[in-house]
């Protein structure tokens, strides 16, 4: 589904990704771990198509098509979804109308008519219930004044609405208390199928207790330096990242 080969990317002439290789197949869950500043969030943004990042070398393909020249919205239309580490506040646009616009623009790109209002409402209610989101919350301005937990829950709500093929969860666990974490992880698990894939970016093992990865990769200095199974995450939790740094530097 997603194939990344020798990916180099930089922002403002500062090289951040320095040769990432990664393949994610349908049905798989991959965890990306690593110390601060190693390039985890950059990788997420580059896959989603953030323009500030320049791909200097290598390629990203999604379902056998090069996507690194595509605009962010075109990648979204193909089924790439990024749950933001810091969801942006958009005053004046309600949660409901934002998601309505997003869904109908995606449908438009696929040559489909707008979703009938009745179906939209039904879908919104269904997915809001899945994430245990209060109905009143849906008419508030997007992310404005939301708590950390509300913001993340709203991200997964949008993911549930858009039903992406590849969901990239960028530090979705940060700022969540244990109850919110459980709700969010539950939501992700319910949306999981053999046809879609999830890439979980996290510092900590905690989230991986709920969203169990098939593979764990460690990024350090813009490269994947170690890959393994979920046991690698447990090892990292126990021993920290220093031994990895030492191994790489040696």
């Amino acid at each position: 589904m997603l194939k990344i080969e020798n990916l180099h990317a930089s922002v403002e002439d500062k090289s951040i990704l320095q040769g990432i290789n990664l393949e994610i197949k349908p049905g798989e869950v991959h965890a990306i771990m690593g110390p601060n500043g190693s390039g985890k969030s950059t990788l997420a943004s580059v896959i989603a198509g953030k323009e500030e990042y320049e791909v200097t070398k290598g390629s990203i393909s999604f379902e056998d098509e090069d996507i690194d020249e595509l605009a962010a919205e075109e990648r979204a239309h193909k089924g790439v979804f990024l749950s933001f580490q810091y969801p942006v506040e958009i005053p004046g646009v309600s949660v409901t109308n934002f998601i309505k616009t997003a869904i109908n623009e995606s449908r438009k790109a696929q040559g489909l008519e707008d979703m009938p209002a009745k179906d939209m409402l039904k879908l919104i209610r269904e997915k809001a219930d899945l994430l245990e989101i209060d109905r009143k919350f849906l008419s508030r301005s997007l992310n404005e004044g939301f708590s950390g937990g509300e913001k993340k829950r709203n991200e997964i709500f949008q993911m549930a609405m858009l039903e992406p093929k590849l969901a990239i969860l960028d530090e979705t666990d940060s700022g969540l208390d244990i109850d919110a974490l459980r709700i969010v992880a539950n939501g992700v698990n319910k949306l999981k199928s053999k046809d879609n894939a999830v890439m979980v970016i996290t510092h900590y093992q905690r989230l991986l207790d709920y969203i169990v990865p098939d593979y764990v990769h460690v990024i350090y200095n813009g490269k994947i330096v170690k890959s393994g199974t979920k046991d690698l995450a447990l090892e990292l939790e126990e021993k920290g990242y220093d031994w990895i740094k030492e191994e790489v530097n040696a």
Partner: protein
Amino acid sequence: MDLKEKLLSSFMVFEDKVDIDTYVHDVRSDAIKTFEEKGFPTKKQEAWKYTSLNKILKEDYSVFPKQENALEYKDIKKYFLYDIDTYKIVFIDGKYSSHLSQTTHDGMDVCLMSAALSKPKYRLVIENYFNKAATKDSLPSLNTAFSSEGAYIHIPKNKLVEKPIQIIHFSTGNESATMLQPRNLIVVEENSHVQIIERHQSLTNNPVLTNSVTEIFAKKRAIVDYYKIQNDSKEASLIDNTFIKQRQESVCSVHTFAFGGKLTRNNLNFYQEGQRIDSILKGVTILGDKQHVDHNTLVHHIEPNCESHQDYKGIFGENSTGVFNGKIIVEKEAQKTNAFQSNNNILVSDKATINTKPQLEIFADDVKCSHGCTIGQLDESALFYMRSRGIPEKEAKALLMYAFSNNVLSSVKIPEMKQRITKIIANKLGVNIGFDL
């Protein structure tokens, strides 16, 4: 012959043609003298520092459009608020169009200025109100000298006017260039409520210069909601001079939706002549191309315990220019005044310009006055966020801009009007999304 000379010599011809009522005649004669003395404003004057009339004054305007032009309703329906029942006062090239209008004398007067200026039964009202709010500045004076047609609205006491009143001026472009000077007089007596929509619409790309004066008198506890839709052709210029005198406990609001023509200048003046008055001035300005819009507002707090609220949002693209000059005067007697002013702008192009200047003159010591202006750009991180959810760049920008102007739109009390403005905004931003936020 330049425009000023042409206007001065035309005045002689004009005075010969109209009925000479002594009061109006005297007012007109004084006004033309004032205009002769002052001439057109130039950038040397502080209030016109950022707006030059030079270019638009160079056209060879026809001052009295000659023929009466017929328009078919179906061809111009889209400029009306047609999905609700309204009174309509419609003018084509400055002349009243009876077949497009729907006026009334049933318990109130929603009719013509020409009738009010000439018929004896209106004489008292004219003597009491005509030119009693307009200032003696050059452009209002020029309008006063030539005033002959426009809307005359007189709402008696204790009347809730259920249907909004639309005042629409069409220009057909039958002359190579046209100058229009509409004059509106609106008197709303005690406890009455009226909603008015005003629009100027040119139907061709021939130059039009409209120098309009509207005088509004809101009596005790009257409520006046006034909406100005400015979305004209690229060769149409408008100088709007509006003067509102409010008596105690009255509430007047003016929403100006400035989507531009060529050059637009809004001189909007509120005078609070009583206690516990509320004055509301709101505006959304969205410009592109080389459009120029200048909002020049004045709120004069004369008596204690009054409020004023100003909220203007501007979005400037391409080579457009915006000006906001908001003046608040709080007289020494006007204690406990609450005056708020905010002007927020987004520049979406490197070549667009906004000049914003608050001007507060406060002589009372127990008042709350605040003003703030901001100039920014669209939030890049918000744009990426929206695009990553599948909303294309153009639509994402439009949505952000719409959301930015939404708290001005949300105070529009006529739902159909709000829908219409929303459509115009979507059109202006080149997108086809509903924005039902």
